[in-house]
C-alpha cells in the first residue's frame, strides 16, 4: 500500500464538467486520482479520462526542453519534424530571444495584420488572459482566437444575439430539477460523462422525462421518453416545427412573451411553412413524434434544453441554436431553476478562455473590440496610449490559417492547440501551415501542428501549474500544481511574460506590465476590468468554486441567469429559414458523414493518444448501419475506405445500429486516420464555425494492408 506524500486538490483537465480531482503524489509522481464525494460538481464520480488519463504527464515523448529546428524553415517549404533528431535542444534564453527577434522583425516589416495567435481552451484563465494581452497590447492586433470557434461558436453567437449572454443559463446540477429535458446534438455519456450520470439520475430517481434529438442512437436513448432520429443538419425544421405545434395548440407562455421578449409577431409570420409534416419530409423524424416532443416540452412546469456540437458545428450552426432559443422563449422555460438554455461546453476551460477575451471580436468579459469605450478601459488597464489598441475585428481560427500567405498572416503562435487535427479539410490546412513564415508552438508534445514549428516552448500540463479553469456552468475553480514541472518545462503564464518583456524592450515601448509573482495577480488584474469576475479571488474559491457573474467581493455567485431580465433587455425571437447542409448525399457520395468524439479520447489526441487511454481504445472505427453495411458487403471489423471530395482514410467498420441508415460516424482523434481530412471547410456566415457534422462520403471495402495499423484492433464491449 502506497502512502501519499501529499494529496493535491485540483480540477480535471478534460471536459467542461470541471470535476474536482485529488491528485495523490508520492516521490514527485502522481500515482492515483480520487475525488471527494461531497464535491459540488461531480459528487464523487469520475470518468475514465479524469480518473486514469493523467499519465501523459510522464510519457517519455513529452518535451521538457526548449527546442529549435535544425533546418531553417521558409514560407512555402515548411515541413513537419516529429523526430527529436530534427531539433536542437536550446536554453530558454536562446529560444525566447530568437522568437522575440523573429516576431519583432515580422511585425516591424508587415505590421499588426501579419501577426496571429491561437490561445488554448485547455490552458488556465491566467494563461489565456496573458496571451491575448500580449497580442493586443504589443502587436496591436485582434487576430486572437482559439478552438471555441470550432465547437460552440454557433451557440455563442446565437445566445449573444437573442439574450446578450453566451454561457449555460443554468448549472448542470440542476438537471435533476427538470420535469422534461431535451438533449440534442450531444452524446453526453461520452463527452460529458458526469452530466450524463445526472441526466440518468433525473430520469431514474426524479421522474424527469428525457427527449433525445440526435442522428445517432446514443447511450442516453435507453432512458429516453422519445428519440427523434433526425438527419444531420435538419435541426432548424425539427425544432421550428416544435414551435409550430406549440403555437398551433396554444401551449405558449403569453405572459413570458409579453413581459420578457420581443419580435414574437415577426417570428409567428415565418412559422407557417414549418408544419411537422414538412419537417418530417426533410428530417425523417415522424411528424407525430415532433408533436409529442413539443407537447412534452411546452406543458412541463420546468423544462430545459442541453445541446452539444450537433447544433453548432454546421454551416447554419447559429440558426440551429436560435431554433432552440425560440422554443425557450415561447414557453418561458428560461430564467428559473430547473429550466434553461444550456450549451454543454467541450473543453475544461473553453468557457474561461472565451471569458478571457481569447476571441477576435471581444476583450475579456465579452466587450466588443470595435467599441471605443471598451478599448479605453483596456488601454487604461494595460498602460497604453489613448487610441492605441485596434478597433478592427480580428480573424477567426479558420480564417487565420486561410490568410497565411504573402500580405496576410506571416507569424503564428500556437499555445496548446492542434489545428492540424482540429481544422476541417486538413489537406488545405496543411498547405496553409506550410505558408507561414514563422511558427511558435507552446505545448507538451510535438503534435501534428507543433511539428511544423520553428521554435518549441515546453509548457506544463495541468498538474504542474497554478491557476483557474471556468467550467461549462460558469464555475471558476482552482487548478493547483501537484509537483514541480518536469525538466525545464515552465508554466505557460511564465513563458508568455518572459517573451512579452523581450518584445517590449526590442520595440522600445512602455510596458503593459508582466512582472507577476503568482497567477492570482493576473486574475485580479483581469477582474478589475471584467465585472463578471470582479468578486473572484483565490481565497474565495479555495475550497469551492464560484459561479460567475460575481460582481462584488460579497456576491455569492449566480447559478441561474436571466431571472429578471436578459443582458440585452428583452429576449429576441429570430425568424428562421431552412438552409440545407452545404454538401448533401448524392449518387457519387451517398452517405452523410458526421464526426464526433469517443469516451476514451480527447480531441486531437495530444493528451489521450499519449496515455494509457490509448490502450483502452487504440483505433478509429467508422460506424455504419447494418442495412447500409449489407448493401455494400461490409462486415463488422472489415477495413473500409471512407472517401469525400476532399480526402480519404482507411479504417475498420463497426456495423451498428448506433448510427442511422444513410449516416456514418467517425471520431476525429486519430492522426493515422484523421476524420478531418474528409470534412467540409464551409463556414457558418455569422459564427464562422465549420460544418464538421455533415459532409457527403462514399464507403468502399478495403484491404487489411490499407490500414495504417493493421495490427491494432479495438475490442470493447461498451456501447
Amino acid at each position, binding site marked *: 500500500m502506497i502512502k501519499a506524500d501529499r494529496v493535491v486538490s485540483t480540477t480535471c483537465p478534460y471536459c467542461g464538467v470541471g470535476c474536482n480531482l485529488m491528485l495523490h503524489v508520492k516521490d514527485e509522481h502522481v500515482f492515483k486520482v*480520487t475525488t471527494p*464525494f461531497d464535491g459540488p460538481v461531480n459528487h*464523487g464520480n469520475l*470518468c475514465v479520462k479524469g480518473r*486514469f488519463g493523467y499519465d501523459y504527464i510522464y510519457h*517519455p515523448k513529452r518535451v521538457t526542453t526548449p527546442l529549435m529546428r535544425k533546418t531553417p524553415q521558409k514560407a512555402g517549404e515548411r515541413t513537419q519534424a516529429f523526430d527529436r533528431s530534427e531539433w536542437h535542444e536550446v536554453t530558454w534564453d536562446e529560444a525566447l530571444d530568437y522568437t522575440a527577434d523573429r516576431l519583432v522583425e515580422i511585425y516591424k516589416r508587415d505590421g499588426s495584420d501579419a501577426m496571429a495567435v491561437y490561445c488554448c481552451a485547455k490552458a488556465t484563465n491566467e494563461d489565456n488572459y496573458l496571451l491575448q494581452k500580449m497580442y493586443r497590447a504589443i502587436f496591436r492586433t485582434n487576430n486572437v482566437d482559439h478552438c471555441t470557434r470550432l465547437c460552440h461558436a454557433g451557440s455563442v453567437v446565437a445566445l449573444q444575439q437573442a439574450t446578450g449572454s453566451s454561457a449555460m443559463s443554468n448549472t448542470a446540477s440542476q438537471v435533476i430539477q427538470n420535469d422534461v429535458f431535451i438533449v440534442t446534438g450531444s452524446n453526453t455519456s461520452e463527452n460529458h460523462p458526469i452530466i450524463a450520470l445526472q441526466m440518468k439520475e433525473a430520469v431514474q430517481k426524479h421522474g424527469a422525462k428525457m427527449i433525445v434529438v440526435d442522428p445517432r442512437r446514443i447511450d442516453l436513448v435507453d432512458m429516453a421518453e422519445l428519440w427523434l432520429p433526425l438527419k444531420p443538419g435538419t435541426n432548424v425544421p425539427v425544432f421550428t416545427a416544435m414551435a409550430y405545434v406549440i403555437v398551433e395548440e396554444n401551449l405558449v407562455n403569453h405572459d413570458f412573451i409579453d413581459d420578457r421578449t420581443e419580435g414574437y409577431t415577426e417570428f409567428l409570420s415565418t412559422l407557417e411553412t414549418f408544419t411537422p409534416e414538412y419537417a418530417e419530409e426533410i428530417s425523417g423524424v415522424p411528424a407525430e413524434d415532433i408533436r409529442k416532443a413539443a407537447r412534452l416540452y411546452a406543458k412541463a412546469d420546468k423544462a430545459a434544453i442541453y445541446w452539444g456540437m450537433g447544433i453548432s458545428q454546421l454551416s447554419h450552426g447559429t440558426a440551429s441554436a436560435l431554433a432552440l432559443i425560440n422554443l425557450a422563449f415561447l414557453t418561458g422555460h428560461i430564467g428559473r431553476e430547473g429550466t434553461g438554455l444550456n450549451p454543454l461546453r467541450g473543453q475544461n476551460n473553453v468557457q474561461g478562455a472565451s471569458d478571457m477575451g481569447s476571441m477576435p471580436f471581444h476583450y475579456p468579459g465579452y466587450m466588443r473590440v470595435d467599441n471605443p469605450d471598451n478599448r479605453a478601459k483596456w488601454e487604461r488597464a494595460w498602460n497604453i496610449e489613448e487610441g492605441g489598441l485596434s478597433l478592427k475585428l480580428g480573424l477567426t481560427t479558420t480564417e487565420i490559417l486561410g490568410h497565411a500567405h504573402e500580405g496576410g498572416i506571416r507569424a503564428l503562435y500556437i499555445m496548446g492547440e492542434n489545428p492540424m487535427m482540429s481544422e476541417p479539410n486538413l489537406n488545405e490546412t496543411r498547405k496553409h501551415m506550410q505558408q507561414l513564415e514563422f511558427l511558435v508552438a507552446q505545448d507538451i508534445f510535438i503534435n501534428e501542428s507543433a511539428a511544423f514549428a520553428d521554435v518549441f516552448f515546453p509548457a506544463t500540463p495541468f498538474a504542474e501549474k497554478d491557476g483557474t479553469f471556468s467550467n461549462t456552468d460558469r464555475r471558476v475553480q482552482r487548478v493547483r500544481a501537484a509537483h514541480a514541472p518536469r525538466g525545464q518545462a515552465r508554466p505557460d503564464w511564465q513563458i508568455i511574460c518572459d517573451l512579452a518583456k523581450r518584445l517590449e524592450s526590442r520595440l522600445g515601448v512602455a510596458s503593459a506590465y508582466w512582472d507577476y509573482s503568482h497567477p492570482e495577480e493576473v486574475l485580479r488584474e483581469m477582474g478589475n476590468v471584467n465585472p463578471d469576475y470582479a468578486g473572484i479571488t483565490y481565497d474565495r474559491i479555495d475550497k469551492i468554486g464560484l459561479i460567475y457573474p460575481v460582481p462584488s467581493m460579497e456576491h455569492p455567485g449566480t447559478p441561474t441567469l436571466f431571472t429578471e431580465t436578459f443582458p440585452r433587455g428583452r429576449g429576441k425571437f429570430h425568424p428562421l429559414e431552412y438552409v440545407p447542409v452545404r454538401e448533401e448525399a448524392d449518387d457519387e457520395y451517398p452517405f452523410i458523414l458526421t464526426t464526433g468524439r469517443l469516451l476514451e479520447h480527447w480531441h486531437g489526441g495530444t493528451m489521450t493518444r499519449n496515455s494509457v487511454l490509448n490502450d483502452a481504445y487504440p483505433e478509429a472505427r467508422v460506424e455504419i448501419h447494418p442495412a447500409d453495411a449489407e448493401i455494400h458487403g461490409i462486415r463488422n471489423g472489415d477495413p473500409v475506405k471512407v472517401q469525400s471530395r476532399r480526402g480519404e482514410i482507411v479504417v475498420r467498420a463497426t456495423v451498428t445500429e448506433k448510427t442511422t441508415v444513410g449516416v456514418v460516424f467517425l471520431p476525429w482523434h486519430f492522426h493515422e486516420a484523421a476524420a478531418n481530412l474528409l470534412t467540409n471547410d464551409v463556414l457558418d456566415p455569422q459564427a464562422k464555425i465549420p460544418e464538421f457534422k455533415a459532409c457527403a462520403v462514399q464507403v468502399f471495402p478495403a484491404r487489411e494492408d490499407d490500414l495504417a495499423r493493421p*495490427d491494432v484492433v479495438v475490442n470493447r*464491449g*461498451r456501447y
Partner: protein
Amino acid sequence: MAEITLIIDGQEVTAEQGKTLLEVAREIGKDIPTICFHEATTANALCRICVVEVEGQRVLQPACIVKAGAGMKVQTRSEKVVRARRTILEMLQSTMDLSDAPEIQQMMVEYGADANRFPGAERRESEVIDDNPMYVRDYSKCLLCWRCVQVCADDAQYTFAINFDGRGFETQIGTFFDKAIPETSCVLCGQCVGVCPTGALKPKREYLLEQGMTPQEIGVLNTGRKQRKQR
C-alpha cells in the same frame, strides 16, 4: 419534518424522523464503526459491523439501515455489541487479506480482535486479475461489501458491468459470463475503485508501483500496444 425522541447510550436525543440510527448517533458524536456503508451508496447492512443493541429487539440491529424510532433505547457499545463486532473482525481476518485496509486493521486493535481466533479457516484466495489498462482486481482482498456493484449500477453509473457471481462461500464479484472487463459494458470509469474499502480494486499504476516498477518503467509500458507486444 416531524421530530422524534429516543435514548442513545442513556442520552436523550431529538432527531428528524426517517433518519437511520447511524445518522442520529453520528450527529451526537457517537462512534459507530462501518465497513460496507458508504455515504454515496445505498446501505444494505451486509457487513454488520455497525450493529447496535435496541431494547426489546431479539437480535442486534444494523445502524446503517434501521430507522431511529420514537422511544427507542439504543446501546452503541454494550458488551454484546462489542463481542459481535470483534467476532465479525476475526472472521474477516481469518478468510481474507486485510493488508490494504488500514481502517479495518485499526478496528481490530480497538476491539481487541484475535487474528488467530479461527486458525483452520479456509481463506478466500484469488489470483490478481489484470485484464484491462486501468485497474486490477484482487478478490483475495474483497469482503463483498457490494459497493462496487452498486456504483456500477443505479447508485451512480448505470452501467451494470459487474455483479455477484456464485453462491455462499464461493460468492465473488464478477462479470457476466466471466468476460474480461474491456469486453463487458464497463466504461472504465473506476467508480468501483473509488469506493472499494479494502484495496481489492486498485488503479493499475498504483499496483505496478507497489510491484516495484519505477514510474519510468511504467511510462514505457504505457506508450502503446506495439511497444507492449515487444516486451
